[in-house]
């Protein structure tokens, strides 16, 4: 089982989420659990709590999961999804305050070295426009 922190990417657009996940896989590799979700059931833009929950579970690691989001609902729905997790998982999932694409690559790079959830979040959030 992979003991590195997992990464979840939540965008309103499935294309953005999938593309960000592709960048993580190609730049960082396969050493981090990774899942993405996004888009409304009808094919439009959107995020929903059930899909985010499922993505967190797909990327689950005992070391925790860092979630990267884009705008508004992606963040609030992610927070709601985290609240719906069982207690034992809840305190091991964090939403990072970072740009979704760059944050995902930074977070995954940190996670691939076996860093803690707190370090993974700090690295994603350290990234600020110059």
């Amino acid at each position, binding site marked *: 089982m992979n003991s590195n922190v997992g990464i979840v990417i939540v965008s309103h657009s499935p294309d953005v989420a999938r593309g960000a996940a592709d960048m993580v896989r*190609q*730049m*960082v*590799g396969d050493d981090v659990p990774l899942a993405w979700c996004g888009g409304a059931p009808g094919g439009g833009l959107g995020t929903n709590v059930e899909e985010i929950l499922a993505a967190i579970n797909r990327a689950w690691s005992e070391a925790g999961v860092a979630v990267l989001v884009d705008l508004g609902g992606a963040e609030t729905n992610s927070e709601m999804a985290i609240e719906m997790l069982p207690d034992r998982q809840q305190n091991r999932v964090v939403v990072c305050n970072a740009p979704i694409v760059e944050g995902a*690559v*930074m977070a995954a*790079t*940190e996670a*691939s*070295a*076996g*860093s803690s959830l707190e370090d993974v979040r700090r*690295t994603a959030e*350290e*990234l600020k426009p*110059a």
Partner: protein
Amino acid sequence: MLHEVGLHARPSVRLTQLAKSFASRIEFGPSNEGPWTDVKSIVKVMKTKTPKDALLYFRAEGADAQAAVSALIALIERDFETEA
């Protein structure tokens, strides 16, 4: 720095990942007087925007310092290809 585009995203990730596999503190800089950048910080490494043909100085401190610097230089010399 031989890589075609300099120390861009993918090379930076490789360098940081390799650095993190060593216990020593490892830094690089554009001269032997710095300014020094922590090679284990992916954000700081990318911020250097090191271009192609730049000369990099490495320094490390710790039990595996020698091995760490040798491994990082080898990675750059083989153009960031991961070992087979």
